[in-house]
């Protein structure tokens, strides 16, 4: 069993991270905490993708060195280089995640301007009963 876990430990870690992130997004009442959870959640997916591209047995970074234009093409061996595709995808995913975070933070500032708090339950209370706003504000 231990061996089984160790064989794919990256995947296990990503599952744990994902659960942490998901829990923070759903269970935490503070909006910043939710965003932190979102970041963890997204990075865990990136970790998952990067793990897909790993090749054991001496594969290196997918940068081909020392070959001029097309010469020596026969020297390139697939097994020597890591799978570049997941890396490409994840570059996009990182950018997407930071963009989402940016927009979410902008909304966060709007929310704070309006309610002067970032706790979800307090905001809900204010929305239900606008008079409680003054006591908190």
């Amino acid at each position: 069993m231990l061996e089984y876990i160790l064989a794919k430990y990256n995947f296990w870690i990503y599952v744990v991270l994902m659960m942490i992130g998901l829990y923070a997004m759903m269970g935490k009442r503070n909006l910043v905490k939710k965003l932190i959870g979102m970041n963890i959640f997204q990075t865990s997916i990136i970790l998952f993708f990067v793990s897909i591209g790993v090749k054991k047995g001496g594969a290196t970074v997918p940068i081909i060195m020392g070959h001029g234009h097309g010469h020596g093409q026969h020297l390139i061996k697939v097994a020597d280089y890591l799978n570049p595709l997941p890396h490409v995808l994840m570059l996009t995913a990182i950018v997407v995640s930071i963009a989402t975070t940016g927009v979410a933070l902008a909304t966060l500032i709007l929310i704070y301007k309006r309610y002067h708090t970032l706790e979800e339950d307090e905001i809900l209370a204010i929305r239900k009963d606008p008079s409680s706003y003054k006591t908190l504000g």
Partner: protein
Amino acid sequence: MIDQFPALIIVAPLLGAFLTPIIGWRYRQLCRPWALMILAIPLYAAGGALLQVIRSGPFGYNLGGWAPPWGIEYRIDHLSGLMLVLIAAIGLLAAINAKPGVSMDLKGKEPHFYTLLLLQITGLMGIVITGDLFNIFVFLEISSLSGYGLIAHGEDGAPMATFNYIIIGTIGASFYLLGVGYLYMATGSLNIADLAAILPNLYHSKMILVGFAFFTTGVAIKMGLFPLHVWMPDAYTTAPGPVSTLIAPLMTKVAAYIMIRIMFTLFQPDFSISVVPVATILGWMAVVAIIVGGIKALAQTDIKRMVTYIMIAEVGYIVMGVSVMNRPGLTGAILHIVNDACMIFGLFLIIGAISYKGHGREIYHFQNLNKKMPFTMAAFVIVALSMCGIPPACGFFSKWYLIMGTIVAKQWVFSITLLCSSLVNAVLFFRIIEKAYLAPLGGGAHGHDDDHEEEVIVRDEAPASMLIPILITAAIIIILGPLSGKIIAAVIQHAVPAAF
């Protein structure tokens, strides 16, 4: 020219979006004509592409000249052609409609609004046109991000609603991405056509099952299928008028499109039937969605919120059509995507016009509205009848196919649910029609004697830029109905997998 249509559909609004802030920087008034002009291009190209598909079958377009599994392929088949035309048409009409609403709610931010509108359309069209799973994710995020920005600018509760939408929407998109990851891990490919060829050998792999589960959950979040709908009513109710008009009809429908793609193009139908009981689960979720959506809608007095709950029920219709797994059901689902987009669009247009004229959105505000806004209300009646499934409006025909699907599948509970739901819709809409057209209850007829002067009610119609899209949409709703036979023969029947 025709060969470049697929690229044109995406590139034109994208470039347009990049240029809009530059134009708006100095000449703010030019933003709207510019956006309209830009939006006409994809409509034209999408129409041309659809005709091309009808004439000579699906075709692909390799971006950058790289062959499909390696490069990104844009693929237009019957289903995506239809969706493209739908999105482009609704986008254009929504942009025409936006003018008065934007100048009222979003004064001084026209460039931003039109940029985000164009980006939204780009994102939605990109989702539909691309044949690459990861590219769908990218476009999904473009449309979601522009949606977040637009919605957050709405009335009082909007930022909070948007924040929830961002959190839940990100979970949805990430689940989708996770699904892509699992499929990539199992097959090594991201191209839908390529995957569809590889996958059948792997149907019993647990990775595929998990990937499929994440796909469906992610997409279900985006389309607001019942237990995952929590973000939807708040977001669409609080969004500014022109924004909900644009996003509400399209976002859920495009998500439904992704679901149909995944279940019927990416996976073969027998995967969803024999390997996973997902069809049955989805069907019962749809039943719950329809019932809960209907009940919640009945409980609302704010008509905009009511419509969002109706949308939840309508999403249930589409999912139900998918879940019965037969030809009439899927035909009905696809037809309902089109029809429902038109109907919901019409409803939001009308609500937008009514709020623009300063009338509230509560049902009692509709009193005597037929005298103030006769054309708007006439269009409302048409949309309402279509929602109740009264022929010859288009709602009847999609409902017919959906019911046929449930009958063929011998799912009687589903059939009864659909029928009851159209009765619920009748209650929902006739109470408003009654309010708008008839004298207040207890007031009595005011016609028998002309002795007492009626209070003079001045006609106060919405401006032309709002009224024209409303009337066009109403006309489309009527025309689509009798034409549905033709649409199905020309387009939809080719979109249904041959296995059915």
